[in-house]
C-alpha cells in the first residue's frame, strides 16, 4: 500500500515534468451485484440459521457506486517509437454492504516501436477486498471474522505481429494475494504465463483468444495454527475470448461479448481435508457490453456480467458449499480531459 502510493506519486511527478499533454479520464460507474458475498444456494437457504455469516448486511445483493480516475501521458514519441505511462485509481462503495467497499490502483508503462509491437509492464493493487465473514479456525470453532485480502499483481508482456491484422501477446505475471491478519493461512503466491492471439476483422472488429496458465502456491501452508494444515495450493487454466464489434454498428460505437472460464484443480490430497482434497471448479464469466460515444469527450458504456462457479468434489456438501451464481450490471459514464500547458 505504502509502496504503491510512492510509485503513483513518482509517476505523477515524472509525468508532469515531460513536455507532452496529460490525458485525464474520470468515470463514474453505477452498478448492481446480485450476490455480493458469493453465497451458494445452500448457504442462502440456511442463512437464517446463522445470520452472523451476513457480516451485518441485510441483503445478499447491493448497489455499487464506483469512481475511476486515470492519468495517461506519452513521455516521448519519435517516429514510431513511443513511451507512455498511465495510472488509475478506483474507489468502490457498496451501498448495501459497507464491508465490501475498497480501493484499487494501477500503474503501467508501455514502450511501442511500431504497429502491434510493444513491451508493457503493469502493476495493479487491490486493497482489502472483502469476501465475507468466515470462521477463524485458528483460534475458534465458530467465531466469525471478516475476511479481507489484498492483491498485488505485476505482469510484463510483449506484443508482436504475426502477419497483417494478426498479432499476439506473451507475458508472465506474479500475483500476490495476501489476506488480512486472521486469515493469512490462505496467502497465495500466484505465478502465471499468458498467451493471447488477436485478429482484426475487416468491417467487424477484433476477436481474441487468451490463455493463462496459473500455478498458485499456498505460502502459509503449515505455517500458522490448525487451519494452515490444509494446503490451498492449486493449478489453473483460464480461457478468455473477447469479441469486440466496432464496425457496421448503426447507433452504438462498440458492442462486445466475452467468455472467460477458469478451470482450477487443488493440489491437496490429504484425506482429512475434505474441503480441498480432489476438488476442482469451473468458474465461468460471460460479459456483454455496449458503448456509445456521446461527444468527443463523453461516452457511456452499459455492461453486464453473469458468473457461475460449478464445483466438483467427492463430497456433495463441498459442491453445494462452493458453487454459486452472480450477476453484475453496470452503467459507466466517462469523461476525457487533456491538460496541455505547452
Amino acid at each position, binding site marked *: *500500500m505504502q*509502496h504503491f502510493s*510512492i*510509485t503513483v506519486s*513518482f*509517476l505523477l511527478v*515524472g509525468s508532469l*515534468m*515531460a*513536455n507532452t499533454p496529460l490525458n485525464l479520464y474520470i468515470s463514474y460507474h453505477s452498478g448492481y451485484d446480485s450476490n455480493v458475498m458469493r453465497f451458494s444456494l445452500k448457504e442462502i437457504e440456511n442463512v437464517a440459521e446463522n445470520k452472523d455469516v451476513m457480516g451485518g448486511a441485510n441483503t445478499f445483493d447491493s448497489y455499487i457506486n464506483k469512481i475511476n480516475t486515470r492519468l495517461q501521458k506519452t*513521455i*516521448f514519441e519519435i517516429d514510431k517509437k513511443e*513511451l507512455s*505511462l498511465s495510472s488509475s485509481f478506483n474507489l468502490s462503495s457498496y451501498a448495501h454492504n459497507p464491508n465490501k467497499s475498497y480501493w484499487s490502483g494501477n*500503474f503501467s*508503462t508501455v514502450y511501442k516501436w511500431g504497429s502491434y509491437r510493444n513491451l508493457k*509492464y503493469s*502493476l495493479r*493493487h487491490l486493497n482489502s477486498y472483502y469476501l465475507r465473514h468466515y470462521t477463524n*479456525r*485458528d*483460534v*475458534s*470453532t*465458530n*467465531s466469525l471474522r471478516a475476511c479481507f485480502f*489484498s492483491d*498485488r499483481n*505485476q505482469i510484463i508482456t510483449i506484443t508482436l505481429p504475426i502477419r497483417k491484422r494478426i498479432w499476439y501477446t506473451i507475458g508472465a505475471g*506474479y500475483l*500476490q494475494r*495476501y*489476506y*488480512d*491478519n*486472521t486469515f*493469512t*493461512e490462505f*496467502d497465495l503466491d500466484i505465478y502465471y504465463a499468458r498467451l493471447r492471439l488477436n485478429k482484426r476483422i475487416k468491417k467487424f472488429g477484433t476477436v481474441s483468444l487468451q490463455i493463462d496458465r496459473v500455478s498458485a502456491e499456498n*505460502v*502459509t501452508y503449515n*505455517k*500458522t*495454527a*490448525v487451519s494452515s*494444515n490444509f494446503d490451498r495450493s492449486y493449478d489453473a487454466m483460464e480461457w478468455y475470448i473477447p469479441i469486440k464489434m466496432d464496425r457496421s454498428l448503426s447507433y452504438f460505437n462498440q458492442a462486445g461479448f466475452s467468455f472467460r472460464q477458469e478451470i482450477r484443480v487443488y493440489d491437496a490430497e490429504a484425506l482429512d481435508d475434505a474441503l480441498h482434497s480432489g476438488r476442482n471448479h469451473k468458474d465461468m464469466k460471460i460479459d456483454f457490453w455496449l458503448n456509445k460515444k456521446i461527444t468527443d469527450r463523453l461516452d457511456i458504456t452499459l455492461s453486464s456480467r453473469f458468473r457461475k462457479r460449478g464445483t466438483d468434489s467427492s463430497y456433495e456438501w463441498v459442491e453445494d458449499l462452493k458453487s454459486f451464481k452472480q450477476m453484475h450490471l453496470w452503467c459507466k459514464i466517462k469523461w476525457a480531459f487533456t491538460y496541455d500547458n505547452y
Partner: protein
Amino acid sequence: MIITNKPIFITIFTIFIGCMQPNEESVWSVSEEGVFSTSGFCRNVSVINNTAYVAAGQSGVQVWDLNTGVKLNEFLGYYNSGEYLDFEDIAIVQPEEVNNLLFVNESNEAVMVFLLENPDQLIFRGFIMSARTKDFLSFSSFDEVDRFYMLSADNDDGLKYHKYKPDTTFNPVTGELIEWKPILGIGGETPTDGKALGIDSDGVSKVVMAVDQLGVEIYKFDSLGSDLMLHSKYDLEGNAEQVKLTDEGLFVSCDDFGAYFLSNNYIESGQGSVVHFAEDLTVDHISVSGDIAVLSIGSKGIALYDISDPINPEPRGIFDIGYVYRSKFWNGKLLACTRSGLKIVTINS
C-alpha cells in the same frame, strides 16, 4: 535523454518495490520435538527433575527419562498379599520424593500407595482416600520425616484432606511397613453439593475444587493448617472439571463452555474480574507457565492463549497435536498427554 531516463527509472523502481509483504498473524506456532510411545493412552504425567511418571491408562504406570527418551520402567500390575493384580486403567500418577512413594489412581478408585525404593519394583503400601477419587494433590512434610499431606476431589464425598504417617504395624514375613494411615485431628472430609472433579492448591493458604455443574469452591486453611474452611463458591456456566491456581487468580476448565479466569480479588471478595474465554471450545484442562496458558481440548489438540494480561486472554492458535487429555510444562517445553503417547512440544510465542 533526461525525459527518457526518468520513466525507465520509474519503471525499474516500481518493479523493485512492486512486491508486498504478507501480513503477520498473531498466532504462535508449535513444533513437536518427540513422542514417547506409551502403548496405552497417556492420561497424565508428573515430573520430578527430568523423570516423567506417566499414567498410561491400560498400559499401567511408566517411568521415562525425558532427556534421553528412554523408558526406564513399566509397571502393569503389582503384588498385594502375595497375589499379582493387573492395573485396570491408570488415570493419575504422582511421585512423593521424601518418602520414595508413588501414588497411583485408577479411574474412579481410591489412591494406591507404592514404595519405590527399588526402581524396578512397586511395593504396595495400601489404599488411601476412598473410591471415586477424581483428582488429588500431595505435599511432602519437609520438617517431619515419614509424613505427607494429601488433598483429593472425591466425586461423592467432596473435599478430603489428610496428613499421613506410616502405620506401625509390620509385616511379620518381610518386616516392612504395610500401609499409611491418616493422623487423627488433622484434616477430614468436607462434603459438597457438587460433584468434585478437580483440585488445586497453593500449598499454603488456599485450596480450590472444581465441582462440575456447581462451578468452583474455594477453601482456606485454618490458622493451624489442620482444617479447611469453605471460603466462597462460584457457579459457572458449563461443567467445571479442572482448576489451576496461579499468582494472579484461578483458571477453570469448563468442558463445553470453554474456560474461565477468576482474579484473586474476585476469589477473595467477589469484587474483581471474571473472564469467560475460549467459549466455543471443549476445555478439559489448563496448564499455565508465565504468559502462556495451554488449554487441552481433546480431539482438537491444544489451544494457546496469551495471558500476559489475564483479564484479557488473547487466543494464539489451536494446534492439532492429537487427542490431548492434559499438559504440563517442563524445562520451558510442554509435555502433552495424548492418545498416541507423551509428546514434547515447543511453543514458539
